């Protein structure tokens, strides 16, 4: 039987040791860290956070919240005009949390979720109905678009987030916001 050369064995062992020693260890990260991976194939958490951040701040400076009385807001429509499936809550939930917890607004739980929550807490009871007279002051509509461009090996993906707060009674827009997020990547790493 052919015996491997001792030098070849040593080199092989050294290479294996180096490969395992240099591999990036698995780790938990602080979610707020900037050391997160930037994906170019779709909407990532940081994109959603930035969109929610910018939209919330823009909303804050509108006349909707000027008088200090928290308005009642209902999320009305979500339109996803991108090529990928996006959970609207990836952005909307962050805005809802910020508006609700800071006392800036009262937000109606989306239709369906309130019934599920009620059934889970009281499976044999009556499902709640909206009290008479409780109507949202504003409705919040949300739309996401994407735009893809290429130049040689470089691919570019832009997400456009559009939101509108509309007076429920008059359908007059009280606030509108738009935010764009652009990412670039090379051909080998982008999935389109």
């Amino acid at each position, binding site marked *: 039987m052919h015996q491997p050369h001792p030098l070849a064995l040593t080199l092989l062992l050294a290479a294996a040791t180096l490969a395992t020693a240099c591999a990036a260890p698995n780790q938990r990260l602080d979610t*707020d860290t*900037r*050391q*997160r*991976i*930037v*994906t*170019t*194939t779709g909407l990532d958490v*940081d994109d959603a*956070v*930035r969109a*929610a*951040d910018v939209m*919330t*701040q823009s909303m*804050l*400076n509108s*006349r909707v*919240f*000027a*008088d*200090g009385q928290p308005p009642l807001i209902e999320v009305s429509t979500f339109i996803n005009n991108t090529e990928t499936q996006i959970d609207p809550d990836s952005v909307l939930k*962050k*805005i809802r*949390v*910020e*508006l609700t917890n*800071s*006392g*800036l607004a009262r937000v109606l739980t989306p239709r369906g979720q309130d019934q599920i929550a009620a059934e889970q807490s009281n499976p044999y009871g009556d499902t709640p109905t909206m009290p008479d007279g409780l109507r949202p002051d504003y409705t919040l509509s949300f739309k996401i678009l994407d735009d893809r461009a290429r130049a040689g090996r*470089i691919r570019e993906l832009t997400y456009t987030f559009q939101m509108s707060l509309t007076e429920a009674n008059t359908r007059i827009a009280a606030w509108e916001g738009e935010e764009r997020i652009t*990412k*670039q*990547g*090379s051909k*080998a*790493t*982008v999935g389109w």
Partner: protein
Amino acid sequence: MNTPLRRITAILCVTATLTGCQTVNTAQRSDPVGERNLVDDQRIVTDLSLAQVAQVVSINEARVANGRLKVQAQLRNKDRRQHTIHYRFEWLDREGIVQNSITSSWKSVSLEGRQTRSIAATATHPDVVDFRLELIEREPLNAFKNR
């Protein structure tokens, strides 16, 4: 080095200089109408190279209609080259406790050569009375970008 090669090298150098070091010219009212409520700020510099690039010119604050604190900082790129600076505002209440908020997330601002740009943020919590601005230049981990 022969003459055509020398000429091409010279053209390439000039082109690289022109594209890499474009600076911004600015025009504004000589006597600004808006009155800014400037904040006396204290600076802690741990990254000298960043401080030599991005200078915080001034910080001013205001209260928006619903009483929330709004802060604006003017950043100046002291370099002739374009730089991207990452920043975030942290919000503190009367007891100096940091208020967690989505408006404290890291954001980026691109500064052309010698350009001055404003960055602003509004606190969502009514208890916020103070702020802290953090700046960093290091690029985030970017495993899938421009490889």
